[in-house]
Structure formats: structure tokens, C-alpha cells
């Protein structure tokens, strides 16, 4: 009896590790799509926005425009890749039916989330760091608060991987899988201060922008580089934690009800 109740409480690391390894192996196999293509498109943004616009706007808050957009570009990749990695990772087994094995394995919901979201978040963090390294070859970069930079990176990756996980479970077809990243995440990121500071906007748009969650993430992340931000770092951090909590609650609810996983 003791061994059973002991069992019930024990974390199935073996399973999490198996899921995690499996997911990371998928990345290795699809290296082109997973890592290289986001790096290429980020470089393109650099060339287009950095040099085309950068030649007109020379400096923002004492930072060259090229350096200014780096945090925003990293965030852009981080958000879209976290969402698409995680949503695909759970949607695909649902689609081809292999999810039966995950549902029938002695693995708790927490472990499933840790495995999938962990792998998706780690992938996009690695990607973010690769973009950072690439960018540092093009423009001179300084990172004022490296610890906070990493914290924002991890918080954001995990939160949006969670969001992706939720989308993957919710989606009934590939169209639904694409619609959120395409119609919600990307526009919010573009409008969230990737390429400008909020005070460059007309006052009314500055107000509206405050409803955009991505503003807080980009602002906080940019602060960790330059020490300047649109909103105070404390608020950014609080918001990032709030979004994470919202994601966790939603995932908890999904598993509690079996929503779209178990009929």
C-alpha cells in the first residue's frame, strides 16, 4: 500500500525525459525548419528595417536603431516559434491518433505539459540566443541586465509555449492551428513596439497599446538590454507572470475536464 501511494505522488521523470527527448529529436530532424528559417527571416527584418529605416532614424534613447530593434526581433521569433512548436507538438499526435499512447501512459497532466512545453520553450530559447548571437555580429550590442534578459526570455518562451499547447489542443484542423499565430500573435508583436517606442505613437494609440500584452514583454526585454523601457520593468515582470499564470490555469482546466482530449 505504501509503495502505491508513494507511486502516486512520484513524478514520472522517465516519461517527461522520454517525451522531451522525442520532441528534441524531431527538431534535429527538421533543423532547417526549426532553427535556420527563423534565423534567416530575422536577418531579413534586420536588413529591411535596420538599414532602410535605420538610415532615417539614427538613434532611439541613445541606442542605434539597429540595436534598438534587436530585442523586438528576438521577441517576435520567440513568440511565434514558442506557439507554433508547442501547438504542433500536441496537435500532430491528436491528428494522427498517436495521442492514445500519451493518454494511456502512467503520466500526469503536469508531466505531459512539462515535457511538451519544456521542449517547445527550450527550442525557442535556443533560437532566441542564436538570433542574439547573429545580431551581435551585425550591430554592436550591450546587455545591461543579462540576468533579467534571461528571465524575460524564459518566462516569455514558457508562457507562449503554454499558449501554443492550448491552441494545439483546441484546434480541430490545420487552419485553426495557423489562425491564432497568424492573426493574433504576429500582429500583436508588430504593434507591440518591436520597431518603435510607444511614445512615437499618437496619444490615443499609446493608450490602446497598453491592452496589448506583447507591449509589456518587449518593453521589459528591451529594458534588460538598454535600461530604457516604455512601461516600468516591475509592471512588465508582473504582467509576464500574470500571463504565465493564466496559461497554467487554462491548461489545468483542460486536463481537469479532458477538453478535446478525452471524449
Amino acid at each position, binding site marked *: 500500500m505504501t*509503495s*502505491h501511494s*508513494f*507511486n*502516486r505522488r*512520484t513524478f*514520472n521523470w*522517465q*516519461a517527461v*525525459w*522520454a*517525451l522531451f*527527448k*522525442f520532441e528534441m*529529436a*524531431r527538431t534535429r*530532424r527538421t533543423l532547417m525548419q526549426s532553427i535556420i528559417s527563423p534565423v534567416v527571416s530575422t536577418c531579413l527584418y534586420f536588413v529591411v528595417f535596420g538599414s532602410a529605416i535605420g538610415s532615417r532614424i539614427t538613434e532611439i534613447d541613445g541606442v542605434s536603431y539597429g540595436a534598438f530593434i534587436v530585442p523586438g526581433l528576438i521577441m517576435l521569433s520567440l513568440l511565434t516559434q514558442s506557439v507554433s512548436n508547442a501547438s504542433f507538438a500536441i496537435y500532430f499526435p491528436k491528428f*494522427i*491518433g*498517436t495521442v*492514445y*499512447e*500519451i*493518454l*494511456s*501512459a*502512467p*503520466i*500526469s497532466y503536469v508531466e505531459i505539459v512539462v515535457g511538451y512545453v519544456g521542449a517547445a520553450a527550450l527550442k525557442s530559447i535556443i533560437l532566441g540566443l542564436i538570433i542574439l548571437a547573429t545580431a551581435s555580429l551585425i550591430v554592436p550590442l550591450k546587455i545591461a541586465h543579462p540576468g533579467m534578459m534571461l528571465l524575460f526570455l524564459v518566462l516569455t518562451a514558457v508562457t507562449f509555449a503554454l499558449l501554443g499547447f492550448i491552441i494545439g489542443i483546441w484546434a480541430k484542423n490545420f487552419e485553426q492551428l495557423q489562425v491564432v499565430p497568424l492573426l493574433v500573435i504576429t500582429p500583436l508583436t508588430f504593434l507591440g513596439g518591436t520597431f518603435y517606442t510607444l511614445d512615437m505613437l499618437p496619444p490615443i494609440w499609446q493608450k490602446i497599446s497598453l491592452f496589448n500584452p506583447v507591449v509589456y514583454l518587449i518593453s521589459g526585454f528591451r529594458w534588460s538590454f538598454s535600461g530604457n523601457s516604455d512601461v516600468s520593468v516591475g509592471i512588465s515582470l508582473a504582467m509576464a507572470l500574470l500571463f504565465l499564470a493564466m496559461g497554467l490555469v487554462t491548461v489545468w482546466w483542460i486536463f481537469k475536464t*479532458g477538453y478535446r482530449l*478525452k*471524449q
Partner: protein
Amino acid sequence: MTEQNTIERNAPADRDGGTGGDDPIVQVRGLTKTYGNGFEALKNIDLEIQRGEIFALLGPNGAGKTTLISVICGIVNATSGSVLVDGHDNVVDFRAARSLIGLVPQELTTDAFETVWATVSLSRGLFGKPSNPAHIEKVLKDLSLWDKKDSMIMSLSGGMKRRVLIAKALGHEPAVLFLDEPSAGVDVELRRAMWDVVLELQKSGVTIILTTHYIGEAEELADRVGVINHGEIVLVEEKTQLMQRFAQKRLTLHLNEALSEIPDSLTDFRLELSNDGNTLHYAFDAKGERTGITKLLTGLQAAGITFRDLDTQQNSLEDIFVDLVRNGA
């Protein structure tokens, strides 16, 4: 540490001693399942699977076989009722319950781009077992998949994919194995090979529950047979008992003149007289040493009963099955 516990619990030597002894290894009580669209797929199912047996679940398409298995394995939530696996509730104590179960699903649901080796290793990991390449090698060899271990699953034939699914389930050394239509789309030779694997597993102490549409398969393998129809269990019986019914033949005599009653001299034969008195039925064991037919005919002659025709009918498991399913409708 967890693994240690699981392994010990799964070890055949421990299985008989441990929690169980003679209790059923799977106990389903008052199970109902109503799907989201309001369809009642399982109606108050009670079922007990004995340790170490091979149980064949028969039933027409849509009877609820897959639904029942899915609920036991935790893929589909029950609407009410409970499932105990080796005494562990499959919801409250899902870890202990599920770690004992292996499932080979009906549909060929496999990854496409993974190798056979990777997918079987994943299964083992998901079930919390430490990696054991020797075991996986043995499983793949038993299922004649060894030379395909590094092939992408996509490149395999349907029958090979079915074996990959079996390998995935065996990869984590389950104590209870569910095979949902293992012989669908499998050729005769492979079916034989699979039966050997199943019987071999039973010898090592694994309990096996399989669904099938081939009655011959149930006859070949099962210790007990259950029939499900319209979400209800309509029969659970030892196969040998069923086979006795199967071995029974019926001799029907079409009489020249209607009888009002069976003469006393013939009571030993336990004959049945039809309502109109025109036919006599005699049941006998076709596999027995003496069928009693000669005696019966002599007796009839002595009693002055004559007949113009006679025929015999075999009572097959198939007949029993068809009967049950029709009556249940």
C-alpha cells in the same frame, strides 16, 4: 525508485503473490459511457478478467468493444462506474493502474517519420521504465521487426505497422495486454505468428484481452469469451463450455405421422417434439465415442415410428454468436 517498484510489481513471480492472488486483475463495475453527442455506447457493464487468462471480446461493429477498452485504458472518460486494475482504481490511482496496461489500438496510429526503434523506446519511457535495449531487441526480434529497427515507420507495410504497435505495447512489459482487433489486415501466416506471440506472453504470466471478428481466433486462443452488443455484455463463458455447445449436433427427424407424445420407451434419449408433432429433435455430442444414433433408430423402429427424412445440424460458436446478437437487437 519508482521504476524499481513498478518492475517488482510487474514481475511475473510477484504477480500471483502481491496484491492479487485470485482476485480478477481487471474489474469493471457498473460502467456506462455516454458520448458528447448523447449516444450511450456502454450501458452498465460489469466484467471481470482473471489473472493470466486470454479473454476474447466479440461483438458486431459498433457494439462498444473499443469504447470499453478505451475507458479501461484511460483514453476515454467514463460517465459512471469504476475500473480496477490489480486493485488500483484507474482514475484515482491512475499511475499504478496504467503502468500495468499495454494497449494495441484498432487503428494503425503510428508516427510517420520516426524509426521503429525510436517509437518503441518512447513507449518504454512514457511508461516510466528505464531504458533496456536488450528487452526492446528481444521484442523486435520476436515480432520479426529487427531488420526494420532503423526504418522510418512511414516506409513499412500495414501488417508491419500493426506489429510496431504491438512492439510499442510490449516494450514496457505490461501485465495486462489489450489487443483491439490484432488480426485486422494481417495475412494468415502473420496471424499464426501473432497467435504464437500471444500464447507465449500468456505463458510468461501476461493477461490478454483481445477483440476480434474472427470467431476462429477466439476459438484458437481464448480461455473465456465475452459477447457485447449495443453496449451490453450479453454473455461471458468459458470457451470449453461454449465449445461443448459447439460440439453438439442436432438430429432432426421428419415424421410420416404426427405424434401426440413421446413414447415412454424413448425417454432416455431426451427427445424434443415440435408443437405440431411432425418433427423430433435429438441432441448429441458429435465428438463423443457413442452418439446413440443407432440405438435411437432401433428404438424408433420398435415403437413403430417411421420418418420420411432426416438431417443433422452443427451448432457453431458462430451460430451462438449470431443468435445472441440477433436476440439482443
